[in-house]
């Protein structure tokens, strides 16, 4: 390969233009208190450059971000999980542990479901945030937390890239904590409501006899 070596003029060889250009560039950056443009729309009002002042200024996760898996409730404040244990089964690092209610256990707190988990634990230290649980869940009851569900509260956005705790025990999240962190899933499809409607329609279908 032949590298072009441009012939420098005497002025350029004096190194002065290089000095001046270097000064211009550094001066421009020195006084550029511009915000980062990457998440400009998400971080209005924050005053930062290329780096964030981390705990005060938070990174807004992009679409498709895989945060920590949490359980969600439906719009009627009922647990969606039916304790089918598919996520426990599929979980590669075996981070999920589910105890089903058993024969005499509590009934589900919603129609169209037989049961709900007695205990549901996720060891966040084992979890690899792969998203298999979310993918496998037939009830859409577990989600890798991100901010982009409908009607999210901007001030209460969950930043689940910063899971912290002071002990191993603290990092095992139980059912109550998972449900609380997961919040309400703003499901647009509402599978069971539709099925209920269909069933009702079936029941009331006018039959000529």
């Amino acid at each position, binding site marked *: 390969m032949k590298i072009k070596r441009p012939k420098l003029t005497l002025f350029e060889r004096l190194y002065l233009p*290089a*000095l001046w250009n*270097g*000064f211009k*560039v*550094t001066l421009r*950056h*020195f006084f*550029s208190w511009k915000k980062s443009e990457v998440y400009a729309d998400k971080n209005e009002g924050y005053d*930062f*450059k*290329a*780096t964030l*002042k981390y705990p005060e200024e938070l990174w807004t996760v992009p679409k498709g971000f895989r945060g920590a898996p949490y359980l969600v409730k439906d719009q009627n404040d009922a647990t969606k999980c039916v304790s089918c244990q598919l996520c426990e089964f599929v979980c590669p690092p075996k981070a999920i542990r589910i105890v089903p209610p058993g024969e005499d256990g509590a009934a589900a707190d919603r129609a169209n479901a037989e049961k709900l988990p007695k205990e549901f634990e996720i060891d966040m230290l084992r979890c690899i945030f792969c998203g298999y649980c979310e993918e496998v869940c037939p009830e859409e009851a577990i989600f890798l937390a991100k901010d982009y569900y409908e009607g999210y509260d901007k001030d209460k956005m969950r930043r689940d890239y910063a899971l912290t705790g002071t002990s191993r025990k603290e990092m095992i999240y139980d059912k109550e904590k998972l449900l609380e962190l997961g919040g309400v899933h703003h499901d647009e499809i509402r599978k069971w409501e539709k099925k209920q409607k269909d069933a009702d329609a079936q029941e009331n279908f006018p039959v000529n006899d």
Partner: protein
Amino acid sequence: MDFWLISLIKICAAIFLVVLPLVAYSVLAERRISAWIQDRVGPNRVGPWGILQPMADGIKFILKEDFTPGHVRKVYFWLAPAVAMIPALLTLAVIPFGSRLGSTDAVIANLNVGILYTFGIVSLGVYGIVLAGYASNSKYPFLGGIRSSAQMISYEIAMGLSVVPVFMLVGDLNLGAVIDYQKSGVWLAFKQPLAFIIFLIAAFAETNRLPFDLPESETELVGGYHTEYSSMKFALFFLGEYAAMIAVSAMMVVLFFGGWTLPFAGLNETATSLGMGFLQVGIFIGKLLMFMALFIWVRWMLPRFRYDQLMDLGWKRFVPLALANIVVTAVILYFWR
């Protein structure tokens, strides 16, 4: 007895109240300015705007393990950091940092061969780095040591030659006399711009600052001569570098920018009151800080020179230029004075 006591007070005050805080805060300034230039935020956690960061750094350096690798030459390994730090502080002894403070001269040692003393001590600075390179007994420090000895010896010549015209004009080697000569406000930087530029660039090379930081070049030599050092020994090299920057900035202020004088409001005359004396010390430190800012800014502005370019610049450009400057100044002085 009085002389000893006053000198001791002046030394302690100059080192512990002026130089070391200046060193600490120029490190912080360097970190903040570099951050701003690189679109970062910089250290801002310790105290408001990070102003207590130097304390945190100091505590960290002291508490860290002082590890001595098994393969080093111990005596020189221990000696080198001190040898790197001390010359920089010794240089400051002859710098007149003000006119008078009360009844004493604002200079620690009023030598009549000030500049010779300075160059003598400055040339000792290379020993710290060479010793560190030799004592570490491994590749990177060795290369750093070799580079630094060649670089510092080369640029010392250009530096020494560049100040000769200054003293031809002044006619005295005492640094106080140099300041007296510039009292009118016609600073020697205006009378001898070429000498100033050569001195400035040689100063960058002498203090191992970018664009001439080849002895330590982090990217290729992994820190160069201080690769094997940790804890307070490393900190001494670090402090030594900044103390050397302060010393050489002080030299430039004295030689080319009128020292503690300003050509108005009577600030160019020997102070008669204590307040005036401190004001002149303030002026001196202000000028010095301008040079420190220049040192810091240039570090984040220019890339490192290649080694042959560095040598080329030193020997083939600056030494002849400085010699020519001497000859021209001599001829002008012969005919016009």
